[in-house]
């Protein structure tokens, strides 16, 4: 029952979010700021994580495919496909849930408890639309680029292993594998996934922030809830989208 009430509240909030902004100029100004905060500021963590994961994946694939009948280029191929299919969207989003989700929930939650949201409402502003829509739109358009970046850097990470440890896989085999049986649709699939995750993470986190009641302690709790529920939603939709798009 509680879950249904919460879901109802979430969808009704999204109803207010998805209306036309009162002032387009202000909307684009806020969008620009959010693209910086949500998109650009996430580039660093995505880079670091992707390079390391690509490197580790390559080493592990090397161990998994330790067999004379399996060609070594499979290592390049599987690093590529794992990065594309799962890592660049799902795992990156699990990490971004922590970074972006908690940030959004605590920002909006603090605005709630310090009555800044009420102040917006009194001005006659639709506060949900004003505060939340730019965040969702910013994530929707920047996250797919983060996924592409993650794929590229993961492959670079693997390349680094091939370059330094030819006993795992040679550079030539690795590169041959990267080109072997490439399915462009996998990239589409991951971009669609991350765009959906972007909406989920930003809207869920904004929801928990927006309905914060109390003080600083509750802002912390909202922020934790935002991360947990964002992660659950990402995992759930990962399953659904995979079923729908890949099978």
């Amino acid at each position, binding site marked *: 029952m509680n879950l249904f009430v919460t879901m109802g509240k979430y969808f009704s909030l999204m109803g207010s979010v998805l209306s036309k902004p009162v002032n387009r*100029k202000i909307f684009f100004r806020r969008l620009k700021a959010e693209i910086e905060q949500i998109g650009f500021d996430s580039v660093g963590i995505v880079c670091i994580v992707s390079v390391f994961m690509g490197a580790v994946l390559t080493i592990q694939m090397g161990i998994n495919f330790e067999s004379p009948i399996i060609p070594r280029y499979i290592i390049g191929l599987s690093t590529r496909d794992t990065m594309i299919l799962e890592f660049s969207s799902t795992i990156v989003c699990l990490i971004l849930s922590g970074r972006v989700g908690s940030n959004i929930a605590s920002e909006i939650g*603090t605005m709630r408890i310090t009555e*800044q949201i*009420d*102040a917006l409402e*009194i*001005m*006659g*502003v*639709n506060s949900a639309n004003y505060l939340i829509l730019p965040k969702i739109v910013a994530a929707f358009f920047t996250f797919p680029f983060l996924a592409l970046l993650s794929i590229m850097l993961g492959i670079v990470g693997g390349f680094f292993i091939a370059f330094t440890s030819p006993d795992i896989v040679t550079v030539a085999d690795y590169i041959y594998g990267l080109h072997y049986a490439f399915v462009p649709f996998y990239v589409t699939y991951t971009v669609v996934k991350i765009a959906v995750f972007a909406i989920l993470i930003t809207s869920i986190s904004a929801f928990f922030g927006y309905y914060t009641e109390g003080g600083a302690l509750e802002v912390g709790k909202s922020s934790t809830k935002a991360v947990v529920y964002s992660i659950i939603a990402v995992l759930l939709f990962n399953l659904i989208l995979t079923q729908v798009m890949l099978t």
Partner: protein
Amino acid sequence: MIEVVNVNKTFGEKHVLKDINATFDAGKVNMIIGRSGSGKTVLLKNIVGLVTPETGEIYFDGREFVKVDEKRKREIRKDMGMVFQGSALFTSNNVEENVMLPLDLFTKMSKAEKQKRVDFCLDRVGIVNSHHSFPSEISGGMQKRVAIARAIALNPKYLFCDEPNSGLDPQTSILIDQLIKEITVEYNITTIVNTHDMNSIMEIGDNICFIYQGNKWWQGSKDDIFTTDNPELNDFVFASNLYKKIKKAHNDE
């Protein structure tokens, strides 16, 4: 003029506002007074529509406000300005941007016109050289001033202040009170101030509405306060020895 008619508000089991009827006049500082927890903030939030009452009507110069849709509510709200207890300035914007935001959102003024209006409002509340400071960098009294400047930026017909001098020293309190009074008279605003501060009531209160345990217990002018025989109001107003003495002096005159 704002009219509150038969307003009831409950939170769960708790009946916080009990059938409130009150009228607040234009060009006057109308005060809602009462002890902490008596329901002042809840009443003010009902009036501005941040909380919806279970029953009752609220009229802004004859315009009903409770049962209207969000769009109409936002329309009427463009005539409102509010100074929150904690000022509620936008912490990520500087002083000037705080006052500029309502102009950016709702006017078609040119950049120069907006700047002129911002300068005028800040000047009016006595802020001269902190235009580019952030709220966290200025004092509580200054924050209140900026909040007032932001509230009057769009020439409101109605101004609401929730405990405008809580957390301020007595001298700053008086300055803020006087500012509210001056602005009210100057622009013929219907101002409602929530307070439990006797100095404010005596300094600027024109029409005083005493809330006791969620009921409107008494309404009158500040002179009426000295002659009232309402025991609860007497207990509230003349709680301190200072005010007991003032009352005595007043009644001996």
